[in-house]
């Protein structure tokens, strides 16, 4: 794939003086396991890939025409992979991936959205204590208990509202609508509308 990403918008590049763009925008070469399609807008800040630790190839795949705006970040564990389909828009989504997050084509994720395919810590308090020790600043992360993961799939044309949270194992059907602030813990059928916290399926689709 040919890389055609650009960092920041045209307007953001005017008026340069002693302050430097690279304090904000990450203009370093992309990791070799990040694959970017044609005509992609990728507003890559220093936070965007700060927690990208995937050792898979590809570990992040952005399809043609994808738009990734600043505020979006890809936290991907060594075994994880995130795939964003053609034409999708990420206004400000935080990906927390230990396994696989698959986003279809023409998906809209609004501001402050969180998508996680793992709880990242065990439910059992004794195991979680072991995890806390292994995760301490001077700890040994090899001692961490195994993570329980379940892939997340967001199908073509789905829209995910401002501040919504999508948790592990969820499949959001094609053209589904997720309201602002909704917390999604179960599958949403294609074309359905889910809103509120706790999230409920809505009879009618007016989400504002």
């Amino acid at each position, binding site marked *: 794939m040919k890389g055609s990403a650009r960092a*920041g*918008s045209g*307007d*953001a590049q*005017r*008026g*340069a*003086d*002693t*302050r*430097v*763009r690279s*304090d*904000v925008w990450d203009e370093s070469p992309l990791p070799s396991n990040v694959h970017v399609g044609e005509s992609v*807008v990728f*507003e890559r800040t220093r936070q965007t890939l700060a927690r990208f630790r995937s050792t898979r190839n590809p570990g992040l795949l952005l399809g043609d*025409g994808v*738009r990734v*705006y*600043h505020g979006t970040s890809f936290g991907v564990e060594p075994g994880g992979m995130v795939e964003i389909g053609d*034409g999708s*828009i990420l*206004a*400000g989504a935080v990906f927390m991936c230990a396994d696989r997050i698959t986003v279809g084509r*023409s998906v*809209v*994720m*609004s*501001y*402050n959205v969180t998508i996680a395919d793992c709880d990242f810590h065990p439910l059992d308090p004794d195991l979680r204590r072991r995890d806390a020790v292994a995760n301490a600043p001077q700890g040994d992360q090899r001692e961490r208990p195994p993570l329980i993961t379940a892939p997340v799939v967001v199908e073509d*044309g789905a*829209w*995910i*509202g*401002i*501040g919504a949270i999508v948790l592990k194992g969820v499949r959001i059907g094609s053209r589904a*609508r997720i*309201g*602002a*602030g*909704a917390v999604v813990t179960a599958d949403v059928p294609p074309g359905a509308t889910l*809103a*509120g*916290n706790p999230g409920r399926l809505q009879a009618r689709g007016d*989400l*504002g």
Partner: protein
Amino acid sequence: MTVLDHDWYPAEVPPNVHLGERSWLYSSFSFVHHRSERDPSVRIGADSGVYVGSRFDLGPQGEVEIGRYCAVAGAIFASNARIVIGDYAFISHTVAFADSFAAVPPDARRAPDVAGARGSPRDIWLGADVWIGAHAVILGGAKIGNGAVIGAGAVLGTEVPDYAIVAGNPARIVGWVPPNAAGRSADRRTGAGD
């Protein structure tokens, strides 16, 4: 052209952004997605502060008018309509004011799958003395009365009466701000065009 003395981001404040006397704007970074052609597009009232994390992702017809003595601690304004915030507002961090539940930056609205599916953008109006908690989402059509309190994480796009306390998703009225010794008067409503 305005360059903020304290700015860490190398850009100017757009010329159609008007900053009131003794106001504070944390950075020109908040205008990276600003595409408004209105003048003024953003008006920050005298003695008001717009702090880190705030951003103005306004479309060509987008307008934001912030009153006097407001504190905006980190809000996203994503709209192609008009947003009015009355005097003495407290807006917490990670609050969003948006004309759609799935708002995106203005440049992305031209994407074919997005543009066709959206209705006409609707205005948002807040009276004076409004207090909005963290992570709340205020959607087009919201009209929030004087002295109203919006709980953290609330989601609403409807009318909120004066001095109501609302919370939840979807938001509902959970109480009322008690009257104070000085009493209340309708002339505290100074948000629009003061």
